[in-house]
């Protein structure tokens, strides 16, 4: 028998929960090892540096508060994009939706700040939801009417949103008290979110949202419709569902939740409307949502881990005087392994003349 060695990938759908867990743990260990090699290369002790990451995220009350503060927008926007992703609507535009939410609510924070505190906050949240929802609705309208590509559409809207802030900052909303330096004024205390346990109350909203989205997707008619549309639009139509309406509605919700993220970030953390209000969170949210398998409870966990990494590495960076970039490289390495592991959860390699593929 003539023989050849070859390597092929085989779709493997029958991994047990235990195997998957083992794979993930292995990926994590590999990530630490590879990251460790990098740390050794730049002349530090990996164990110490890793220790700093963990302790950096938890070493004091303030550190924990800072970690949670990083987590809030990540958690909320991940929940937002999850709604769209469940429907297989590739909403890459969380970034822009966050910004538009922040812009809409900032209008009230800046120009109607004398309203009663509770009412003002309520109006800001509603405005933020509308702003984000609108930014989510636009690509959905074009998708349902003209079948445009939502990935490109939502992506491009991010840049438009970003420049809307620049425009407001340099023009109509420029802080007159900033002596020529273009920036938007700091929100007055009345327009800032209150603190609960020393952290802005966005974290409570985040946790409530986890519960709401979980129930919404699993136990409501609308959640059921989202799932069916995501699986097959023709099936949904066949079952008598109004697919267009469902897409539009879901994108308002998805964008709206991202919009709320913008409110919480601007009025809770930045205390002003900065161009960096989203700061890439909308993109990281996509990774978080997928790593958690679009499960709201999983998103809570994954976004927490992400924030530890984020906060910890900033502490590591300042403690050891590392450049921002080396911390980013380390984060990249860890993410690479964690995401790469997903490939092995779904596929396996076959070496030599064994096994076979279901093509």
């Amino acid at each position, binding site marked *: *028998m*003539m*023989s*050849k060695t*070859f390597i092929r990938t085989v779709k493997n*759908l*029958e991994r047990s929960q235990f195997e998957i867990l083992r794979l993930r743990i292995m990926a994590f260990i590999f990530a630490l090892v590879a990251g460790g090699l990098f740390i050794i290369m730049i002349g530090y002790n990996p164990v110490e540096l890793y220790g700093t990451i963990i302790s950096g995220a938890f070493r004091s009350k303030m550190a924990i508060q800072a970690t949670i503060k990083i987590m809030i927008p990540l958690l909320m926007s991940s929940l937002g994009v999850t709604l769209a992703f469940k429907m297989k609507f590739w909403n890459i535009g969380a970034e822009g939706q966050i910004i538009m939410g922040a812009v809409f609510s900032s209008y009230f924070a800046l120009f109607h700040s004398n309203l009663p505190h509770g009412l003002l906050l309520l109006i800001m949240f509603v405005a933020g939801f509308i702003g984000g929802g609108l930014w989510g609705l636009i690509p959905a309208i074009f998708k349902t009417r003209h079948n445009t590509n939502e990935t490109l559409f939502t992506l491009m809207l991010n840049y438009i949103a970003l420049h809307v802030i620049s425009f407001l900052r340099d023009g109509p909303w420029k802080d007159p008290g900033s002596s020529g330096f273009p920036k938007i004024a700091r929100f007055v205390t009345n327009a800032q979110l209150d603190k609960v346990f020393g952290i802005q109350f966005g974290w409570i909203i985040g946790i409530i949202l986890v519960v709401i989205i979980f129930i919404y997707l699993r*136990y*409501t*008619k*609308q*959640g*059921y419709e989202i*799932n*069916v549309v995501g*699986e*097959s639009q*023709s*099936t949904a*139509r*066949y*079952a*008598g*569902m*109004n697919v267009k309406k469902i897409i539009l509605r879901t994108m308002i919700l998805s964008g709206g939740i991202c919009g709320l993220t913008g409110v919480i970030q601007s009025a809770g953390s930045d205390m002003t409307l900065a161009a960096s209000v989203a700061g890439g969170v909308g993109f990281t949210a996509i990774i978080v949502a997928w790593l958690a398998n679009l499960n709201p409870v999983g998103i809570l966990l994954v976004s927490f881990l992400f924030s530890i990494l984020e906060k910890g590495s900033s502490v590591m960076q300042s403690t050891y005087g590392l450049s921002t970039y080396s911390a980013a490289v380390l984060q990249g390495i860890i993410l690479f392994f964690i995401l790469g592991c997903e490939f092995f959860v779904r596929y396996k390699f076959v070496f030599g*003349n*064994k*096994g*076979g*593929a*279901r*093509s």
Partner: protein
Amino acid sequence: MIERNIENYAIELKGISKKFGSVVANNSIDLDIKYGEILALLGENGSGKTTLMNMLSGIYYPDGGTITVAGKDVTISSPNDAINLGIGMIHQHFKLVEAFNAVDNIVLGTKGKYQKPKVLKEKISEISNKFGLEIDSDKEVYNMSVSEKQTIEIMKVLYRGAKILILDEPTAVLTPQETEKLFRILRKMKEQGSAIIIITHKLNEVMEISDRVAILRKGNLIDTVKTCCTDENKLTELMVGRPVSLKIKRPETDNKKTILKVVDLSVVGEDGREALKNINFKLKRGEILGVAGIAGSGQKELCESIAGLMKIKHGAVLCNKENIIGKTPDEIIDLGISMSFVPEDRLGMGLVSSMGMVENVMLKSYKKNKGFFIDKNPARKLSEQLVKKLEIVTRNVDMPVRMMSGGNVQKVLLGREIESNPNVLITAYPVRGLDINSSYLIYDLLNEQKQKGVAVLFIGEDLDVLLEISDRIMVLCHGEVKGIVDAKNTTKEEIGLMMAGRSMEGADDDE
């Protein structure tokens, strides 16, 4: 024969095994075929026929066993290896470039120097003459009929010098006349010394064309018998594992009243061509109206336009004298018109593959309970009833339906439609790919509905089945109704001619 002449054997398989995860698709199979022989591979769905042949054509790689081609042990690890060994497979779904003409499709992917079209054409016509194939070299594939496309597929493998041909259910898409033509070609190839393996589950064809029959059941080779020494009943018994009656019932019903009337219905299909042209027919309570036609003659469009899923160009569909054109699918479901279409991939429409039975069963009825939240309990109860009543094999009612076998999936689909107590039941290809047992269960279900007074529109593939179960048969060809005939007084040949485009006198009158 005293000494076995090894050169005579085109293929010898010894102990071929193949597993997919924990499922044994092929279990230590020994099979051989000589040059100049036609071997039929018979077996129910999931018996491992296609898997076995896919290993010969290099799509899968066996877990164990040896393959010998023309006396030599070989390793077939890619379709290219298979072609180099002279093995060509003709798949159920054609793999042709629609925009290319016949010649381009035939030579596509072959190695060697560029040759002028004229030279290629000569080469092709030489092969065509040898085997009796009819090929119009300059015709583009999108202008071809299914049968012509199939001829191109056969030509493709012959052009590559294949001496061993594997055909996967080649007659499923052909009219009886086209099938005859194909068989003539196969016989000619056999005379020229080719080895031919034909996968099928149509018994009459097995009897007609093959020299030997190999029967597979649940991944095991049950027996190999000479065709001349067997008959259809024996083959069925071998295939199913016990004697089965092959008679389909056609119960008589009375009080047949027209419930659905289709008037001058025209529909433009997805490709912009007119998919249905001035269709007229009536559907009555308590009858099964069979619809025959070659694949793609407008069956899908007919279903979808009645179900409200397609835009209608003109015409009307009257349900109890109320025009349903312009109503949403939702409103049509409420009128009691239920459609179950089993597409080629079985799951495409009607079921959500990643959801369990419960969530699929409530697909059309979830809106009925009031409020914002969904109530899964009635669907759960119904699912459990269906599992019992229809003998659906599933681990539990929450297991994703994509993990069920095809037959069970179809039972879920049809079961749900029937449980909605429809007035009109449209069912397309409900037994597509099902084994004999499940098929008969489905026929019984349809007859039961008919006796309850439901009007059943049954779009089928197998003419024998249509002839037995239907009260009347409507034949579609290129989106036109070629005639509606009484199933008791027609013949397969007559329907075949209509499928190919000849018009007949109608039997669509009010009684």
